[in-house]
């Protein structure tokens, strides 16, 4: 079954990290990604540009409006994601708990909706 692991980080905290620390943090991400590729969990994943680059689009009564960013006032922002293949939720939680940001921010695990195809 497929799960999307949404990674929420505190951008401020990441931005204020000394270079040596953020290099080590990125290194952990590379190791983690290699690990889940080898274990067969990995289906995809990307890091996102900071939240100030985001735009939210809504259409109401046929009129489109765009606004700056999602919830700029919240502490943690969506910073990236992994799409993984896991046996069940426990397996997915195991993988998610090893994502480096789980220690600093949080990771939301969402099962992918599978539509029956005839």
């Amino acid at each position, binding site marked *: *079954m497929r799960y999307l692991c949404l990674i929420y980080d505190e951008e401020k905290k990441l931005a204020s990290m000394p270079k040596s620390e953020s290099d080590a943090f990125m290194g952990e991400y590379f190791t983690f990604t290699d690990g889940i590729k080898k274990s067969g969990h990995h289906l995809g994943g990307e890091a996102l540009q900071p939240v100030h680059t985001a735009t939210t689009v809504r259409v109401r009564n046929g009129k489109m409006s765009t606004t700056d960013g999602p919830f700029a006032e919240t502490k943690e922002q969506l910073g990236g994601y992994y799409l993984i293949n896991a*046996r*069940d*939720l*426990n*397996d997915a*939680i195991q993988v998610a708990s090893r994502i480096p940001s789980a220690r600093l921010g949080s990771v939301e695990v969402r*099962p992918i909706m599978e539509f*029956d195809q005839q």
Partner: protein
Amino acid sequence: MREDAADQVRELVDAVYRSDSRRVLATLIRLLGDFDLAEEALQDAFTAALEGWPVDGVPANPRAWLISAGRFKAIDGIRRRARFDIASRTRAAQFDGGVAGFVEMDDAVEDDRLRLIFTCCHPALPPDAQVALTLREVCGLTTEEIARAFLTQPPTLAQRIVRAKAKIRDARIPYEVPTREDLPSRLDAVLQVVYLVFNEGYSASSGTSLTRHDLSTEAIRLGRLLVELLPEPEAVGLLALMLLHESRRAARTTPAGALVLLEEQDRSQWNRDQIVEGTALVERALMSRRFGPYSLQAAIAAVHAEAPVAAATDWAQIVGLYDVLFRADPSPVVELNRAVAVAMRDGPAAGLALIDAILARGELTDYHLAHSARADLCRRLGKQAEAATAYRKALDLSRQDPERRYLERRLRDIGTSI
């Protein structure tokens, strides 16, 4: 005569339902992979027993019979529906492949009950849903009974259960006993649910009566089941704690429903059997050297239980146990209780200093028991005005009628003595 025989079978089926329906359900959930399907199959199996057993005789192993009847009915139903829709067709195909060759082994079936408990108490479910689902599926309480116990509307509670089952299915929460490395944290979640159920029964958080006996009984039953299936020290400790608290039930309230404090309780009313059993369990948990907060709280309850009169309580030992407990569980509520024990050992002034320090940190400002404990110590020190203020503060924060009546009585007593 045939009528009599049919009545006898009906009684037997009822008895089997009471003793075994939860085990049968636990196994059916594993075999069918779905809570709702398994519940339907369980009802079908018992209906089949009511119809079949009077004619064919009672099977040698009723539980195994019910499991295979339930499984058969469910698969049959899926096949019939499969003629009409595609999703059921894939499901029917799955069952034709896998489940047919299952062997009923006692180990696997005992494990099913644990699987059911761990699934209902999965940390991915919200805490109130864990409680509701456990009482519904593991204890077999009806939705109405659970709603009544928690003073909730049945539709609200039913929805909580439906959502939890949907999450188990859609997020695929596995039906399994956690691996060794996950066990400690997952067991904590289960013990937490049992403790919540017991606490709601022991000291109802709101409403007109102080205790709800049914919930305590269910919690103790769950605790026993857990100790039987998974005798981990903290599970043993929790069962001990519940039995030792429960032993004082009769003495905790007057016939009119007023609260009686520990030091004023008629100790001859304490349930000796529960104390003996609870104390033996505490010793067993402590001997393991892998005990935690539940075992330590049980040990404290055991020290109270062994004192023939309140004045004979070994407060030094209780303070010592609170010190250990505070290291294991450094919460302000534990600190508050320790302060009360210190007051009993070293006098009210020592306890009051500790409580004031806790309140000064602002953590227990809205906790009514902190203010009533403070009021009590002020009263003993002769600080009547301060005591009255603290009792009033506690009264503002308490939402439980007997507790409120007790505080009002204390306030009146002070009022007359000033």
